[in-house]
């Protein structure tokens, strides 16, 4: 672990994100989607589907996955990996909750 490169940034509060939904964060050129599951866990993925760059933040969230709105690939929130027969992965970012605050590691 290299503490130097770890940079935890507060990006908002848990309430800002709807359950089974997502909100986006712009980090320079990159758009990052922060998801909240039914049991209040949070995950962050680059808002870009490994298939054809669909905005994952706009998908339906279910059981630790999000279904991409463009062509229905199912992406794991935890790893960013496409599920089933599809291959590829979205970039995933570490996130954690500190009380109500959502912190993203960039």
């Amino acid at each position, binding site marked *: 672990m290299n503490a130097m490169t770890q940079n935890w940034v507060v990006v908002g509060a848990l309430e800002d994100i709807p359950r089974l939904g997502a*909100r*986006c964060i*712009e980090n320079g050129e990159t758009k990052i989607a922060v998801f909240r599951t*039914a049991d209040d866990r949070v995950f962050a993925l680059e808002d870009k589907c490994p298939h054809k760059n669909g905005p994952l933040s706009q998908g*339906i969230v279910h059981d630790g996955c999000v279904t991409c709105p463009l062509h229905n690939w199912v992406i794991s929130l935890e790893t960013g990996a496409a599920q089933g027969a599809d291959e590829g992965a979205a970039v995933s970012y570490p996130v954690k909750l500190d009380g109500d605050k959502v912190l993203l590691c960039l």
Partner: protein
Amino acid sequence: MTKKQKLVVIGNGMAPGRMLEHLFEKAPDAYDVTIFNAEPRVNYDRIMLSPVLSGEKSFEDIIIHGDGWYIEHGVMLYKGHKVVDIDRKAKTVTSEHGEVATYDKLVIATGSAPFIIPVPGHDLPGVLTYRDLDDVDAMLLAAQARGKAVVIGGGLLGLEAAAGLKERGMDVTVIHLMPTLMERQLDPAAGYLLEQELERRGIKIITKASTKRICGETRVESIELEDGTVIPATLVVMAVGIRPNGALAKDAGLSVNRGIVVSDSMQTSDPDVFSLGECVELNGNVYGLVAPLYQMAEVAACHLSGDADKRFVETSTATKLKVTGINLYSAGDFAEAEDREEIVLRDATAGIYKRLVLKDNKIIGTVLYGDTADGPWFFDMLKKETDVSEMRESLIFGQAYQGGAALDPSAAVAALPDDAEICGCNGVCKGAITSAIKAKGLTGLDDVRAHTKASASCGTCTGLVEQLLGLTLGDAYNPSAVAAMCSCTDLSHADVRRLIKAKELKTIPAVMQELEWKTSCGCAKCRPALNYYLVCDWPDEYADDYQSRFINERVHANIQKDGTYSVVPRMWGGMTSSTELRAIADVVDKFDIPAVKVTGGQRIDMLGIKKEDLPAVWKDLGEAGFVSGQAYAKGLRTVKTCVGTNWCRFGTQDSTGLGIKLEKFMWGSWTPAKLKMAVSGCPRNCAEATCKDIGIICVDSGFEIHFAGAAGLDIKGTEILGSVGSEEEVMVHVVALAQMYREQGWYLERIYKWAKRIGLDEIRKQIMDDPKMRQSYYERFVFSQKFAQVDPWSERVSGKDKHEFKLMATLLPEAAE
């Protein structure tokens, strides 16, 4: 490295397609392959044309090798190139478009051509044969105008064509020369049962009828029989037999009798020229079913890849008719004769007839009607020449009955030996299927089809394959999963809809809990469906679950491939004004909207809007009086109209006004799948009402209400619901119909599919003939509209879901450092 040889194939039907599969497996690098095909398309499952005709499948569903397959195997396929010359000296073939290809080895697989009875009028427009997709397309086109069809020939093909045309709404008569139907495959008793069943379905059958001539001036109008009967017809389909296509081979000097003469290694009289499929003659026989052709394919592939031992061996094949709901099976020789005995079982109430023909205590033929489950068992004994004297007494009751075992259908399959043939088309035996299931970990029908080809051709052995899956996998196989809503539950849409009502389930978590969902919060398939069912069933109590909606319905705009959105405001009945157009123009300028397009639904689409801009766009549009066009909704979309009596010299009613009324009354309602409507002012039908989910055709005397049309993935003309006299009645009937569909349709099931499932007559009965029923549907729709007609745009402009349109945070680039 040896140079690849050149293989040229003439014809791209099922036989050479299968041959190339074997060849690429055995010797992937042996040949550069070039195919010429007179049909302008890839290789498809010809035997599934009937389901395409009846609407159960689309052409895409029956493609065997898509374009990608040819690319992958480096095959040059000339589509729409008929070969007109073979020069065996120069070893070249030439197509009618002048394309020349050189070969080291040539395969002729020209199939066969339908036989046309040369009666007067056989060449009139409207007289078709039944062989390829073009024939199906031509039949579908003819069927759109409804009208009367006459099918000449009551064999397999003729009856499949008749059933398909009936399904497509035509009035169908079958004319058959012989006294009973399918006399080559069925004995008279079974032929009679079949005839009765078809007549019950509304298909008229005339047997012992010989066609004298086909009449008509510029196209077919009727057909006349030898006995003087005249039958009106707008379409005549000849399905009286096939002739092997041998002319090309004959011109090239090859030996041709009825078909192209080949040895049992598929070699013609020229050692470099092979032939296979329906075009060949082998030991004096010609063939018309795929099972023997697939065997030829394997033999030819072996010889082409250097294995010269493989020989074609004659085996008998069983026949089935692919008309949904009719079960018949026949195999072997079932003619009566002195030295034969027969065992017959009839059950008139159940519509069952079974007959076995025995000779020297062996089964030599069987005909089964109604219950065909034991067909493969009898056929297996027939092929193995099993001595049946031991079980004679109970033989006809089937395999499950032997030894007094319970009558469990899967017991019969379990008892079949490993080498019993399950899939006749592809020659796949039981052992091959069960070992593939075990070795490759297959779990469903599609897997088995992909790995073994069993049930992948005509599909009639699907039930047997499913039973094998069940037997091999035990509880791990769940056949009803095919019909389940999604992998989160074993329940079907029908079960779920029923249970939501019965158990009064009013939230998604309640449904998932009570109906024992297997996942914690469903998936992208079931959640939108449940959300719809609950919205529909409890309009006043259920709170729409926003996170269970597809993004388009969540933000009330259509997501585009680049993540931007498009916005389509309602233009009631397709009418607009300078004020509206000006407002749109202003919005386009203000938000720098990159594209504006007139849609296929008589309104305007603004495309390429950034998500963040959506609320502001709606605000401006809302101020100009627009509401969302719901161009994204599983709900009411457009009501297209024509100008009607307002302007048109042919208009009979105010079609524009009626369309606007309907749209204003029904907008905002959610439906199982999209609902599109149209009103045309006269039967010229400029609003295209006869391909809509619900359409109205105005006539002098009132209004014809149509429904169950489609013009998307499927194309289907509407059915007539009935006629009414006033606009008020149109409103009540249309609204009641929409509500019936809302209450019964499965999520994503368009009205035409629902209608097919429920039955047109049932719908007419409830909506047209039962005023009380109609009124109660109407009232439930009106009640639910109280909660549905809220413009989603103005709601969001006033702040609803505002988080949806804003970033949670914008980090400066430095923050990452």
